[in-house]
C-alpha cells in the first residue's frame, strides 16, 4: 500500500497524475520540484525504504529511449530500452536494481507520449531491419499496470509500428490489459523464471513460479507470443534437477508455436554493484558461495557459467528451435 505520493509541481495538473492519485485517495501528497531531489539523495537507506516505498510522480525530460547494453537481445540487430518507471514492486535478492539506485521509492514518469514520440524517432533513425524495444529494464513491465495504465496506451502505439518489437519483461500475473486485447505479434510477454525452490527464497514479494507458469499459459492460449527468461541462472545445490523440472513443466504446458524466444544469462554483477547489494543484505545466503571477480565483474566464473548454459541448452535442444534461443551476457 502506497501511503505517500510525491508529485512534481510541473505535472500536478497532468491528466495521468489525476488518474494515478485517484487510485490512492487516502495517500498523503507532497509537492516537489524535481524527482531527483528526493530520489537521488545519497544518504538514503535502500533497505529500510524498501519496506515501505513511496510513489514519485514525475516528468521525464530526456533519455527517453536508450541503446540496450551490449549482449542484450532476442534476435534483432538493434535493441533499445525505455523506462517509464524506476524500481520494482518486487524485492528479488539478485536484482541489479538494488544496487542501482540509492532510493527504493517508485518513480513513475507520466509523460508517456514523449516516450512514444522518441520511439518513433528511433525507428526512423534506424531505417533498416527490425528493432526491439525492451520496457522492463528498470522496472517490471506489468506489475504496476493497474496504477500506471502504461500498457493500455502503449500497446496500441506498437500495433502501428511495423518494424518494431516490444518486450514486456515481467514476473507479474496481473494480465490486464493483455487478456482483454487482441494479441499483437510484435509484443512479446517475457516471464522471468527460475526453479520454484529458488524463487521462494529469492523472489521476495513476487508471484510464485507456478502462478507465473499458469499466467503465461493463459496468455499463450490467447495468442500472445511468449518469452521465457532464465536470467539469471542461479547456481545452487542440485541445480540440474531443479532446472530440468522447471523446463519440463514449462514445455508441458506451453505450445511450441507460442514460444517467441528463450533467453538465459549468468548471474553477474559489476564489482561496485555487487558490493552495494552485499552491504544491503550481508546475511543473504545467495552471496555466501565464493564468486569470482575478473575485469570488474563478479560472477560464478566461466566453468560454472558454461556448465549451466550447456545444461539448459541440452534440456531445450530438440524441443525448441535453436534460432529462438539467445544467450544474454549483458552486465547490467
Amino acid at each position, binding site marked *: 500500500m502506497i501511503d505517500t505520493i510525491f508529485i512534481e509541481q510541473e505535472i500536478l495538473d497532468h491528466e495521468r497524475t489525476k488518474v494515478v492519485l485517484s487510485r490512492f485517495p487516502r495517500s498523503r501528497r507532497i509537492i*516537489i520540484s524535481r524527482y531527483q531531489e528526493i530520489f537521488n539523495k545519497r544518504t538514503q537507506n535502500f533497505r529500510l525504504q524498501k519496506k515501505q516505498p513511496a510513489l514519485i510522480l514525475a516528468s521525464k525530460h530526456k533519455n527517453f529511449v536508450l541503446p540496450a547494453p551490449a549482449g542484450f537481445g532476442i534476435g534483432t540487430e538493434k535493441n533499445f530500452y525505455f523506462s517509464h518507471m524506476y524500481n520494482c514492486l518486487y524485492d528479488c535478492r539478485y536484482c541489479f536494481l538494488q544496487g542501482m539506485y540509492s532510493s527504493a521509492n517508485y518513480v513513475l514518469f507520466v509523460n508517456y507520449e514523449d516516450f512514444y514520440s522518441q520511439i518513433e524517432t528511433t525507428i526512423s533513425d534506424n531505417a533498416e531491419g527490425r528493432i526491439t524495444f525492451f520496457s522492463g529494464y528498470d522496472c517490471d513491465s506489468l506489475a504496476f499496470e493497474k496504477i500506471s495504465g502504461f500498457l493500455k496506451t502503449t500497446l496500441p502505439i506498437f500495433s502501428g509500428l511495423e518494424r518494431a518489437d516490444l518486450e514486456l519483461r515481467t514476473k507479474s500475473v496481473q494480465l490486464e490489459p493483455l487478456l482483454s486485447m487482441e494479441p499483437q505479434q510484435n509484443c512479446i510477454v517475457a516471464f522471468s523464471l527460475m526453479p520454484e525452490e529458488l524463487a521462494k527464497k529469492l523472489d521476495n514479494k513476487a508471484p510464485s513460479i507456478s502462478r507465473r507458469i499458469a499466467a503465461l499459459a493463459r496468455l499463450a492460449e490467447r495468442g500472445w507470443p511468449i518469452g521465457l527468461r532464465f536470467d539469471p541462472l542461479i547456481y545452487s545445490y542440485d541445480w540440474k534437477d531443479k532446472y530440468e523440472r522447471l523446463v519440463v513443466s514449462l514445455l508441458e504446458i506451453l505450445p511450441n508455436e507460442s514460444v517467441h524466444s528463450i533467453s538465459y544469462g549468468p548471474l553477474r554483477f559489476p564489482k561496485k554493484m555487487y558490493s552495494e547489494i552485499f552491504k544491503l543484505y550481508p546475511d543473504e545466503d545467495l552471496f555466501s558461495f565464493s564468486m569470482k571477480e575478473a575485469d570488474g565483474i563478479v560472477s560464478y566464473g566461466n566453468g560454472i557459467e558454461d556448465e549451466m548454459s550447456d545444461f539448459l541448452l541440452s534440456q531445450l535442444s530438440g524441443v525448441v528451435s535453436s534460432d529462438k534461443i539467445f544467450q544474454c551476457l549483458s552486465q547490467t
Partner: protein
Amino acid sequence: MLINREKMLGGGFEFSICWVIALPSEARPIISAFKLTKTDDEAVFPIYKNKGSGQLLIISGVGQMNAAAATSYICGRYNFPPWVAWINIGIAGYAEGPLGRLFQVAKVINESETRVAYPGFRLSKLVPLTTLITREQPCNDYNADTLYDMEGLAFAELASRFSCNELTFLFKVVSDSNAKQLRRIKPLYVEKLLTQNMRTIFLLVDEVKELVKEEKRRLDISNDVEIVLSKFHFSASRKVQLIQKYRRWKTAFPNTPFSEACANAKSAGDVIHTLDEMLTSAVFDRPSS
C-alpha cells in the same frame, strides 16, 4: 581530551536513539518519560542519557546554527555507530490547528526553497505527515498545510549524514496558529503540548527502535571479528575482506564457532584463506542451509 573521555564513558553503551531538542521545556517531558539523567556539567550543551535504553538527549537552543552545532557535538563526543536513530521533536506553527496535534515531517525546506530534505522512515500509521519550513526568525504568517519551526532543516541535513535519512526523524507539535497564540507560548504550555502526546511518542519510539535493531544487525561488526582483528595484523583492505567474508561464512555456517573454524590460523592471511576454503562449499539452497 574531553571528547576522548566521553567516548570512553560511552564504551559499552548500546546506542539506539539520540534526541536533539531546542528548548528545555520541549525536552522535559521526554527526559521524564524515558527516565534520562543529566550527564556531567562539562559539556557545551546539556546532555541527558539513559544507559539502559540506549537513549541520549541534547538540548541545542533555538535556531539552525544551534541545532547543527549540537547534532555534530554529540555525535563527535559519543562516536555514534551508524545505526543510531536521530529524533528532533518540538513545537511548530501551523495555520490550521488543532493546537497540540503531533505530525511527522516528510519534507523540510528553507523559506527560499533552496535547501530540501526528506527525512525519516514514514510512520504514517501513527501520525500524519506534512511539510515543514524552517525559518530564521519567528513569524506567524503561515501557509496552509505547512509547519514552521527554526531548527528542523539543519538537523535533518546533518543527522542523516551521521546515520541515514530513514533513521532521521522530525516530529512537531502544533503550538500556535496565529500571532496571538504565538505570543502566548510559555514553557509550561510547551511542556503540556508534548506531555499530552506522550502515548503516541512512546509508540513512535518503539517503531524507531525496531528499525535501529534491523540496521544494527546489518551493520554491527561481530565480536568474533574484533577478536581476530586484535590477534593478527590486518591491513585496511584485508580488514574489509575479513568483515565481508565473515558475514558470508556466518550465514553459511551459523552453528560453527568461529574460534573452532580458525583454530589453526597463524596469521591474517590464514584466516582469510580458511574462510575462502569453507565458502567454496557454501552452495546456495543446500540441504543444511
